[in-house]
């Protein structure tokens, strides 16, 4: 019993392996422009199917949409063609070009019933090897093979979603750079002059703060020194001198303190203003359009 079962299994497998179960297609390509290597590309790409080509038979499918029941209109023809070529399916592909667009109309007929079983219509902007790519997608859909690269290739012609557009340079990038170093954002935006102006202004203001602080520090130290000398001296003339000097130092220390605060305020405000300016003039996509038509010369004829 076991031997009989094993024999039956081996026989079944040999029958299965002996037969080629790949679906067979008769391909009727109708292109208004010649597309080189279409047939060989199809054969190589879809090795799970067998293709036969007949370029002479396409006129019947021209205006399929004009019939009330187009599928049944061709049933006899489809069955005859299927019998003649011994194929399972008839694949009719029509590509029409219109300026920069093309349409692909794909129809798949079953030769056993003669009916239209699948249809795909694509209308899109022409792209590099677009026709072959779209044919691959259509036939891939029929043959059960889908390559992600075809989809990516097709998507490459589409305009980007506004939210997906990533600019290399942005106003925010310019503002952040200027916040780090005044003038950097302007330089990043290609505004060399304003970059130098901002960098120069902020550097000058920073130096002014430093200078004011040093002067303030010097005046404060000098004041303390003269204050000590004033306290420790008994000489009237010297005491007067130390007092006068201490008073001068006090005024200087006050003045430079106020100046340092004012310059610091100006530097801080300028720093923020420089960052805002960098954002305002920041890099944004633009295009200059110039008049194409020739300007008319003034009519000087008498």
């Amino acid at each position, binding site marked *: 019993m076991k031997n009989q079962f094993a024999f039956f299994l081996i026989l079944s497998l040999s029958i299965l392996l002996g037969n080629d179960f790949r679906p067979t297609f008769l391909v009727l390509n109708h292109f208004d422009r010649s597309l080189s290597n279409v047939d060989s590309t199809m054969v190589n790409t879809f090795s799970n199917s067998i293709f036969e080509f007949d370029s002479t038979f396409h006129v019947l499918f021209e205006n*399929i*949409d004009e019939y009330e*029941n*187009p*599928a*049944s209109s061709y049933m006899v023809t489809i069955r005859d063609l299927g019998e003649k070529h011994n194929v399972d399916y008839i694949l009719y592909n029509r590509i029409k070009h219109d300026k920069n667009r093309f349409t692909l109309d794909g129809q798949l007929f079953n030769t056993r019933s003669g*009916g*239209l*079983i*699948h*249809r*795909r*219509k*694509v209308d*899109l902007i022409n792209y590099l090897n677009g026709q072959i790519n779209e044919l691959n997608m259509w036939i891939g*859909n029929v043959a059960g093979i889908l390559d992600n690269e075809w989809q990516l290739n*097709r*998507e490459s012609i*589409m*305009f*980007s*979603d*506004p*939210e997906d*557009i990533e600019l290399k340079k942005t106003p925010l990038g310019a503002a952040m750079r200027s916040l780090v170093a005044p003038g950097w954002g302007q330089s990043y935006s290609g505004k060399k002059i304003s970059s130098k102006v901002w960098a120069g202004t902020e550097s000058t203001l920073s130096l002014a703060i430093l200078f004011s602080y040093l002067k303030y520090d010097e005046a404060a130290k000098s004041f303390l020194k003269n204050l000590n000398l004033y306290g420790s001296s008994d000489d009237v003339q010297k005491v007067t001198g130390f007092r006068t000097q201490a008073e001068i130092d006090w005024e200087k220390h006050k003045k430079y303190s106020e100046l340092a605060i004012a310059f610091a305020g100006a530097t801080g405000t300028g720093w923020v203003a420089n960052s805002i300016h960098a954002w305002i003039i920041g890099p*944004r*996509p*633009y*295009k*200059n*359009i*110039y*008049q*194409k*038509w*020739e*300007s*008319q*010369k*003034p009519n000087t004829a008498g």
Partner: protein
Amino acid sequence: MIQNYKSLVFILLLPVYLNGQVKLSVNTIPKKVKVLLDGILMGESPIKNERISPGVHKFEINKKGYAPLVYDIIVNPSQAVHLDFFLNPIYQIKFKTEEVGLVFELNGTQQWDNKFIRLNIEAGDHLLRVFKLGEIVDEQTIHVDEPKKFNYYLKKSLSED
């Protein structure tokens, strides 16, 4: 009892009804787009294994930020129909000119004479016409491929040089 009878008839007739219908798949770029068939929301794309009766149908495809698409189609009797829709994004365009007395016209429809204007237009090529004192002085195609600003300049005439 009547309810059960109706249910039974429905179940029995369902294969007959479905047999006359065509299997429908709708793929869109971008994905997750609302698809309306004859005014009824089918759902978001991609749509697979839906059913549609042969005849004339109207598809409406909508997504925020994209130009809406209305597509009339004759569905032939077949086992399956696969539709691909490609939506075009809408970009915000700024149009600026320093020239005086110009009137601009886009695609033969929209007109303006402002020095600065913001427009929401579909990505792609658009026909720009420029008029001065009622006469056309320029016509060219502008390519819109991202949100950007267009600055328009007239050529200097020889007398101005």
